C-alpha cells in the first residue's frame, strides 16, 4: 500500500501545533517535578478520553460546517438514565445499549432539524442542549433526589473501572479504538469524503447529487452515540449519577477541534489535528493545576487559547 501512512502525514499546521504542545511539555517539566511522571500522563489522558472520543465525531461534523452544542447535555442525560435504569434492575449491558440508542435519537433529532428543516445549528442544538439537560434533572427527580448515588447495584462501577491487561483503563481503550475508526472514516470512506465536500462547497455537493440532509443526520447521530456512550462509562467510573455532569463540555470539544485546525466554516480539518488540539488543552490545564493556579485563571487561559487559535485560523485562510 503506497499510502498506508497517509493518516499520519504531517503538514506545516500540525507541526506548529506539535511544537506548541512540546513547548508546554518542556516548560511544565521544568516548572513542576510531578509533571513528568507516568501517573500524571495517565491522568491527563483519563481526563481527555471522553472529550477525544466525542470530538472524533464532532470534528467530522464540523468539517461539514455544522456543530453540536448538545454534547454535554446528551452525555448527562445518558449518564443519569443509565444510573436510573440500573437502579431499577435492568442488566447493565442492556441499560448501556438503551442509553446509547436514546442518545442516537437526540442526534437524529438534531440532524433532522439542521439537515431537513434548515434550523440554524446553533439554535437547533442549543434547544437540544436545554431539553436533554432538563430531562437529566427530571430523571434524577423520578429517582427522588437531586442525583442518583445510593442504591445502585454493586456491579454498577465494574464497567467503567475495568483495566485492560490490568493497566489500561477501559475509557482509554475506547478512545484509541474510536480515534482509529474515525481516522479510517475520514480517509477511506464515502462519509468522510462527502463531509469535506459538503463543508467545502455545499451547493456543489447538492448539484453533485450528494444527499446532504442524510449525511448531516448520520453525523449528528454519531456525535449523539458517542456522547451517550461516554455518559454511561463516566457514570459507571464515578459510581453515581449527577445531572450536572459535563456541563459546558461542548465548548471544550469545540476548543480542541478548532485548535486542531478544523475550520468553523467547514471544508478542512483532521482527526489527528483534533487530538493534538485536545492534548494542548489537556496538558495546559493539567500543568496549571499542578502549579496550583486557581481555576478561574485556567478558564481565562482557555478562552485566550481559543480566540488566538480562531484568529490564527482566519489569518491563515485569508492568506491561503
Amino acid at each position, binding site marked *: 500500500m503506497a499510502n498506508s501512512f497517509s493518516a499520519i502525514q504531517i503538514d506545516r499546521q500540525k507541526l506548529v501545533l506539535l511544537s506548541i504542545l512540546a513547548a508546554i511539555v518542556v516548560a511544565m517539566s521544568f516548572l513542576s517535578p510531578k509533571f513528568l511522571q507516568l501517573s500524571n500522563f495517565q491522568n491527563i489522558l483519563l481526563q481527555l478520553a471522553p472529550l477525544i472520543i466525542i470530538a472524533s465525531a464532532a470534528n467530522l461534523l464540523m468539517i461539514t460546517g455544522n456543530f453540536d452544542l448538545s454534547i454535554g447535555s446528551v452525555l448527562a442525560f445518558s449518564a443519569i438514565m443509565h444510573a436510573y435504569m440500573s437502579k431499577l434492575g435492568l442488566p447493565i449491558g442492556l441499560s448501556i445499549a438503551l442509553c446509547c440508542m436514546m442518545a442516537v435519537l437526540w442526534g437524529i433529532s438534531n440532524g433532522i432539524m439542521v439537515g431537513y428543516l434548515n434550523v440554524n445549528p446553533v439554535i437547533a442544538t442549543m434547544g437540544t442542549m436545554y431539553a436533554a439537560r432538563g430531562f437529566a434533572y427530571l430523571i434524577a427527580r423520578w429517582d427522588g433526589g437531586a442525583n442518583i448515588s445510593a442504591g445502585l447495584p454493586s456491579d454498577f462501577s465494574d464497567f467503567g473501572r475495568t483495566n485492560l491487561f490490568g493497566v489500561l483503563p477501559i475509557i482509554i481503550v475506547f478512545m484509541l479504538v474510536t480515534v482509529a475508526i474515525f481516522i479510517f472514516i475520514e*480517509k*477511506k470512506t464515502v462519509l468522510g469524503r462527502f463531509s469535506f*465536500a459538503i463543508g*467545502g*462547497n455545499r451547493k*456543489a*455537493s447538492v*448539484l453533485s*447529487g450528494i444527499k446532504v440532509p442524510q449525511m448531516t443526520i448520520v453525523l449528528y447521530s454519531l456525535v449523539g452515540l458517542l456522547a451517550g456512550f461516554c455518559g454511561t462509562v463516566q457514570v459507571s467510573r464515578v459510581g453515581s449519577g449527577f445531572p450536572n455532569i459535563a456541563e459546558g463540555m461542548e465548548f471544550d470539544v469545540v476548543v480542541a477541534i478548532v485548535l486542531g485546525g478544523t475550520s468553523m466554516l467547514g471544508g478542512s480539518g483532521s482527526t489527528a489535528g483534533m487530538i493534538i488540539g485536545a492534548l494542548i488543552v489537556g496538558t495546559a490545564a493539567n500543568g496549571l493545576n499542578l502549579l496550583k493556579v486557581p481555576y478561574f485563571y485556567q478558564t481565562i487561559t482557555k478562552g485566550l487559547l481559543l480566540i488566538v487559535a480562531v484568529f490564527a485560523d482566519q489569518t491563515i485562510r485569508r492568506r491561503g
Partner: protein
Amino acid sequence: MMDAGKADVLMGIKGLHKQFPGTLALDDVSFDILRNTVHCIVGENGCGKSTMIKILTGALERTKGELLFEGRAFEPKTIREAMAQGVTALYQELNVVDDLSVAENLTLGREKQRFGFIQKDADLSVLVENLRSLDDSIRLTDRVGDLSVAQRRVIEITRAISTDCKMLVMDEPTAALSEDETRRMFKVIGKLKAKGITIVYISHKLGEVFEIGDKVTVLRDGKVVETREVAEIRNSSSCNSDSDACLELVRMMLGKVVLEEYIPGSNIQALKLLEARNLKTGKLRDVSFELYKGEILGFYGLVGAGKTEVAQVLYGIDPYSGEIFVKGQSLKISSTAKALKAGITMIPEERRIGGIFGQLSIRANIPMMRMEKVLTNGIINRGKENALADGYIKGMSLATSGREKKVAQLSGGNQQKVVISKCLNRESDVLLMDEPTRGVDVGAKQEIHDIIRKLAREGKGIIVFSSELPEIMQLCDRIVLMYEGEVRTVLQNGKDIDSDRIMALVAGGEVSA
C-alpha cells in the same frame, strides 16, 4: 436646448479602468453623462455595467482613470460620500422596510435624534412634497408592505431626491414590475427629469431604451462600444421600427460574430433521449423541445430569456409544470437526485459556486458523483482513485503538476475540465452544459468544444446553454432561440444559418417564414 458644442456635462468619465484579480473589468471607459438626460447603459452579462455603477456610486474604487462631477474631481470612498455630493444609486433590491409606514420609511435614517431617542418632529414637508409630485396615490399612513413594488420604488426615489440629488443611478428598476407598473415608473422618470435630475438607467429590456432614453452607451467586454443619441439610432435609415432599433443595439452589444465553421454532427440518431412538453415555471412559458442521441442542442437568448431556467428545471432544481420524457418515459423530475437517476447530469453555470470542491485535490473531486467506481468493499481504494484521475487528466489534457493538486489552484479552463470530468464520471446519457466556457481562455475554450463534440460522437445527448452566439453557432446541431421565457423558434444549423436573423429573433423580432 443645449448647444451641441457646449453640452452641459454633469459627469465626465475619462479612461476608467478597473482591474480585478485575473480580469480587467473596465478597460479605458470614457463617456460623458449630460445634465438633465436619461442616459442608458446596456450590455450583456459581464460587460462591466455593474462594476461601472459601483464605481460611479462610491461602492467600489477604480484602478485608474478620472471622474469629473460638475467639473470637479469626483472621488467618493463610500456610498455615503457619493450621496453627499449628489450621486445616489437605487439597486435592484428594494431598500425599504415593509413593516413601517410610508412616513417612517421616508424619514428613516434622518430622524432627528437626541441621546439616541427619536424626536418625533423630523421635517417631513420636503419629503411629502416630493412624494406628492411623483405619485399622489400613496398615503403617508400606508404600511409599505401593502404597497405595490412600483410604489415602494417611488418611496425609495423620494428619499433619494430629497437629499439634494443631482444624478440618480437606477439598476434595472423595472425588473420585477408588471407592464402597468412599468408605465407608471416611466411617468415617474419623466417627472424626475422635469425636476432637473439626471438619470443613469441600466436595463436588460432594450425596448425601454427607446421609450425613455436620451442617450445610450453600449458596453462590451469592459469597453465602450459606442455612446449614441437614442433618437439618432431610431431615425437611422435601416431602422423602420423600435424592434429594428433594438436589433441595432443587440448588434452593438454582441459585436461582430466571428464564426468558426460548424462541423455537422456525424452520429445523430433517431433515438429521442429527452423530450420536454409545455414546461412552465414563474419564468418559462410553454417551453417544448427534444434532444436526440448524439446531438448537440443549443439554447440561445439574451440575459433573462430563460436559458438557465430550462437547465434548472431539467436538473430538478426548480419546480415546474409540464411533461418531461426521458427515453420515452414520462418522469417528474422533482429533485437533483431524480434527474441524476434518470441519466441527466448538469455542468453548472458558476463552477466556483456549483461545480468544484476547491479545497480538495483533483483526485478527490473526480469520483464525487459516482463513488462506487473507486470503492472496494465499500472502502475508498486509492489505487482505483488514482487510475480514474489519471485517466481524466490525460483524456482532458488537464494541465496540472499532478493529481494531488488542489482544484482551487488550477486555472479557470482546467477547473472547468475538472468539473466536466466529475460530471462525465457519472456516465449519464444527457449532459446539460450551462455556459461551458465562461471565463476560460481561448485555447481551453477550443479544447472544451472538442471534448463536447467527441462526447456527442460517442452517443451522448448534449444541451449547451450559452450566451455566446459564436459558441452556439459553431457547436450546436440545432439551436433553440429563447425570448422572455418562450421558445421563439428552433433552427437547424448549417451553411444557410443567419446570425443577423438569430439576433433579430432573440431581441424580440417576429418569426418570419
